[in-house]
């Protein structure tokens, strides 16, 4: 498959797959809680139903409120388009590296937070304020993870990092372990999962992400929910891709004929990784309780320090 075709497949794959992953997490969680739960395909039906409904917009909302779902969704979608899922041979891969990825997620967050404040309700402001506090620690933590990955592999581009790791450039490193731990903590925070935020909550005072999108309905809500689902897929692709890159198709000159086969293997591996990670997420969320809002700083400060330690350990292990 050429880079152009692979890129187009990737763009539509992440969007098509995202609701299924979220549905699978919900299904496993409800089984663990002793319920039968809805089918994993339920999120597709939910989104279709929301698209059919008219959008209710508050009188006090400005154009920012109506534009935000589209901007948020396309920013997250763009970020997901450049993270390799089944092949590293992507057309857009050089356009954005890990730093740009963090910033694209930041762009989505910026608009969601503004949308939360636009209607002028107390909950919207509360959600925006908490989300920005979480981000102000999660974002640097993720940049520090990028820093240590770039020191290990010499590049900040996710495709190049994966190619480097698949090429056997890195053994078992303490730094990789620390970076993985930090990245998982960031992923939990960025996706609003327990213990930082509960995606299923409707209890007013514990909401973060829900509070920002409280005023949304119809297609706007569908886009906001869709963005959250794509973001979850993105982080699974990132964690699965960098820390367990096996199966990913890496283009090389000698195997041009076998490329399609390698890509099919890559696709199967990606699906398997997503379902393992989604199941793990569901188990983890079932086991743990939500944290108090002002404890977030400890949790995420821990992630930031782990990221920093990951870089510093590189030199310690080098010197020893």
């Amino acid at each position, binding site marked *: 498959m050429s880079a152009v075709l692979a890129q187009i497949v990737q763009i539509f794959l992440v969007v098509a797959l995202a609701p299924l992953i979220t549905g699978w997490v919900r299904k496993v969680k409800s089984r663990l809680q002793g319920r039968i739960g809805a089918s994993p395909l339920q999120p597709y039906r939910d989104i279709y139903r929301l698209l059919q409904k008219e*959008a209710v917009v508050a009188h006090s909302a400005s154009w920012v409120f109506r534009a935000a779902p589209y901007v948020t969704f396309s920013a997250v979608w763009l970020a997901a388009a450049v993270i390799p899922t089944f092949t590293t041979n992507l057309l857009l891969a050089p356009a954005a590296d890990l730093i740009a990825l963090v910033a694209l997620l930041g762009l989505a967050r910026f608009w969601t937070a503004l949308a939360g404040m636009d209607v002028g309700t107390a909950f919207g402001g509360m959600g925006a304020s908490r989300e920005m506090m979480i981000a102000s620690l999660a*974002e640097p933590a993720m940049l520090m993870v990028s820093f240590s990955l770039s020191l290990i592999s010499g590049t900040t581009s996710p495709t190049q990092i994966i190619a480097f790791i698949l090429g056997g450039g890195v053994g078992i490193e303490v730094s990789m372990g620390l970076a993985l731990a930090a990245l998982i903590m960031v992923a939990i925070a960025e996706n609003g999962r327990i213990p930082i935020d509960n995606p299923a909550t409707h209890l007013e005072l514990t909401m973060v992400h829900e509070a920002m999108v409280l005023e949304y309905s119809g*297609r706007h809500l569908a886009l906001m929910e869709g963005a959250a689902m794509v973001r979850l897929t993105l982080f699974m692709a990132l964690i699965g891709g960098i820390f367990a890159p096996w199966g990913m198709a890496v283009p090389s000159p000698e195997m041009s004929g076998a490329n399609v086969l390698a890509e099919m293997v890559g696709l199967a591996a990606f699906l398997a990784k997503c379902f393992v990670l989604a199941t793990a997420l569901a188990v983890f969320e079932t086991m743990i309780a939500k944290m108090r809002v002002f404890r977030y700083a400890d949790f995420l400060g821990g992630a930031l320090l782990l990221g920093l330690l990951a870089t510093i350990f590189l030199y310690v292990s080098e010197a020893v």
Partner: protein
Amino acid sequence: MLIAAALSALLTLAVLGVLAGDQLWRHRLVYVCCALASAALLVGGLKHLGQTPGTGPAIILPFGLPWMSAHFRLDNLSALFMVIVNVGTVAASVFGIGYCSHLPQPRRVTPFFPLFLFGMNAVLIADDAFMFLVSWEFMSLASWLLVLADHKNPENRAAAMVYLMMAAFGTFCLLTCFGLLAGAEGGYAFSAMRAAPLTPVTSFLVVLLAVLGAGSKAGLVPLHAWLPLAHPAAPSHVSALMSGVMTKVALYGLIRILFDLHGHVSWGWGAALMLVGGITAVLGVLYAILQDDLKTMLAYSTVENIGIVVIGLGLSIAFKDSGEKALAALALVAGLYHMINHSIFKTLLFLSAGAVITATGERDLGKLGGLLKRMPWTGAATLVGAAAISALPPLNGFVSEWLIFQSLFKGPSLPHWAMKFGVPVVGAMLALAAALAASCFVRAYGIAFLGRPRSRAAAAAHHLPGTMRWTMAVLAVLCIVLGTIPVTVTDALSGVIQPLTGVHFAVSADLGWPWLSPVSSTRGSYSGTVLMMTGLSLFVVSILLVHGFGTTKVRRADAWDCGHREDIPESQYTGQSFAQPMRRAFCTSLFAARETVEMPEPGDLSPARLTVRVIDPIWTYLYGGIGRLVDAVADQVNRIQFLTVRRYLLMMFATLVFMLLVVAVRQQQ
């Protein structure tokens, strides 16, 4: 020639400004002429950058110190800063055309405005220490007078006093620094300083004094104390220049001395500058998050951005000293790019603060709200500025932060252990500052422009003159353009830094035009152009998908708010409540932030109170300490005032003997 004509025009305009009197059209005319003169300087700078030869002819004029004449020269670095400065001054002058009628006393602003522009531009072309310092003082004193424009407000008078003291301190440091560079022979021309050898001690002192002198003007922590007082006190178009442009002139001074006149600064200073830059960035943005005054918030955010630039400069010095010339060039390009960007979006944001103040008369976030609906142009332009300063792609702020991160990520390749461990720490500070800046501007924009109006003044915000709106629109477009064609800018910058780092370096060398690939094509790359195009296509695709599968119906209704329907706008989040999580997470130890809640007794109908106390460590401990020290010394010295004549004579005699001894000992050697 063009530049000389424009500079003399500015001086003449200052005189005309005095004559303007109460006639508003004359003030407008002065601003129009200022805009034209700045545009001429901008063209002059761009024209020089467009030519291949690096240095313009030296111009020597017969005035200045008795034994030497005044030297002027335009080289690539000066030309670049001339462009940076004059983009801001053109914008501020055009904004001033409409804005001057809203000032309480335009007569106290108009005459000094051209002088301020003159001072900033003259610093850039000065080619000897004397002209540099004279122009520097022109810039300082003119801006001091502009800070005093609204002199009836006691806060402004206090701010001007602090500013004057810090400006005097800065000039004193620079004066001594140039004195050391000139050596005993007094070679005050820059060409003589470049050639003069430096002993290790002088070399150390020169760098220290340059950092103190230029750093106090630029706002490095802990010398930033005057900046958030003085910048907001001036009229908004002057604040825009002070924050967006004058700080860049200060950094020009720093670059000129450290990279050009001195030339061999050791890596230790690079490390120190990076650390100071990191601390400045984090503290600046934390202060900014706590502010309720729109302009003070922006001034603190300037402190943050200066910190980011200084991280780039420090890194560049460290790389240069270790012989990594390409990486030194990369870090310097990143720092310069951030300066360009900051001058544009900070000018834009200060002008929009001016627009908000003009339209509502309020600058307190707690009294604003819902302005996007009343002022759609200002609101949209400010949104672009806020997104750009929050380093969001595809705008310009992100490009420069990306470049700084890329060069920081290469920092651990330096041979020194201090740098290997220090660079990740500075990287974490920079990342923290960047993320907090986004919080800060979501807060400011969300509270001032979104939501519902929190006061009658905000609800009745009125229309603005076209010149003000157009200025902001053009600056917003510049933010987008500089973000989407970064390679064009970095290629222009590589010509500027070639004489400073001694290497020809192009950030796009590996992949070609729209790709920034600073180290090599496999070491991480970015393309604002491609990202913008793809993002826009995905935006269109998502609109088409959503509208294709679903309905496009919209119904307007009351806000839902979980069923708590309330019409009181006070129920919205305020600036302080938005900042509360950040304040609790970051400021409890740094600023000793404490909250106390006073609940009334049951049955008592008085309101409950939440009091927030924040202590500024720099004012309380550093400047408070210096103040107490000065007082204590003054008390001791005061005794000398009440001695008998006999004792005074004795003191004179003792001094005389001491001086004679010194002379005798020196002659012995």
